[in-house]
């Protein structure tokens, strides 16, 4: 009886440890993506969208519209990669000015960048994985 209990405890601890390691791996990945993404944001996006994601008046949209970013999550990779030519409605305001494309960014960069953007400026969407980016890029409009 006692032997069984010890065994059970041992197994339970092992499972808990393994599970924990798994979770940790995910959160380490998230942190890495987020940190690299912040750097990519500074280099590629900040000039227009500003360091706080505020954009510029009615010329450049802010990145603080959490509802828009969640609803259009599958389109985000396409927008960053290919830019925008038509108008976009953010916080109920219409923005017309063209957004340039970022052809230089690889899917892994887009994943990191989007992990940063969708978890900053009031957004909280968790990891944006490279597999998700690659999948979404196939369905660009």
């Amino acid at each position, binding site marked *: 009886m006692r032997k069984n209990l010890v065994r059970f405890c041992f197994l339970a601890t092992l499972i808990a440890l393994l599970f924990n390691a798994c979770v940790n791996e995910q959160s380490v990945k998230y942190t890495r993506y987020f940190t690299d993404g912040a750097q990519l944001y500074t280099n590629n996006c*900040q*000039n*227009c969208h*500003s360091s706080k994601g505020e954009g*510029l*008046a*009615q*010329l*450049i949209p802010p990145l603080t519209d959490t509802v828009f970013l969640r609803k259009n999550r599958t389109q985000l990779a396409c927008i960053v990669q290919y830019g925008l030519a038509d108008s976009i409605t953010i916080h109920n305001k219409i923005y*017309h*000015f*063209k957004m*340039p494309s970022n052809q230089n960014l690889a899917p892994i960069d887009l994943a990191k960048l989007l992990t940063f953007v969708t978890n900053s400026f009031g957004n909280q969407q968790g990891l944006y994985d490279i597999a998700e980016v690659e999948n979404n890029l196939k369905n660009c409009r």
Partner: protein
Amino acid sequence: MKYFFKICCLCAMGMYLSQCTSTPKKLPIYGEREAVKKIINGLETVDTVYQTIPNFSFLNQDSILINSDSLKNKIYVADFFFTSCPSICPIMKSQMLRAYQKFKNNNEVKFLSHTIDPKHDSIAVLKKFSDKLGVNPKQWYFLYGDKNTVYNLAKNSYMSSTFEDRAAPGGIVHSGYFILVDKNKRIRGAYDGTNEEQVSQMIEDMQALLNEYQTK
């Protein structure tokens, strides 16, 4: 801990001293200058003539002609940009907007943004840009002019040899500088429009420049 105390003491002393010695700030005058001899009341005196911004006339976003007369008795900040510029222009505009908001409705202060891409930036495009930026077209002029004229004005008048050593890659016209001009059309300051600290300095200097005219 001991050091900390010492440093605190020094700081306090420094602050105290700087308060004592502070005199109203006077901005330097940039550009070429020459000494001109004049005869006043039969006596020969030497007067310094400073470089000034020559007269120009461009259309603004409301198709109103803007020239030196429009800027009589005004201090102003000028920059060169184009609306479709994705790199440094948005940050310049957001910094310029910060200065604009500080001096909004101040009748003595104007802002001039010259487009260097008249092919794309028609007056209609400039009008739209100014509206979307939400600024008063009577205080912030977006100026449309022939490309060569604008380039020459930028190169030979605003970004004079004084600033040449600070040239950014891509040419001085693209350097992103804000130029502060006084009521006598003399250049009194140049600031990196992409640098928040320098633009804060510019805002202080603009106030200092306005104060110069109040004491006279």
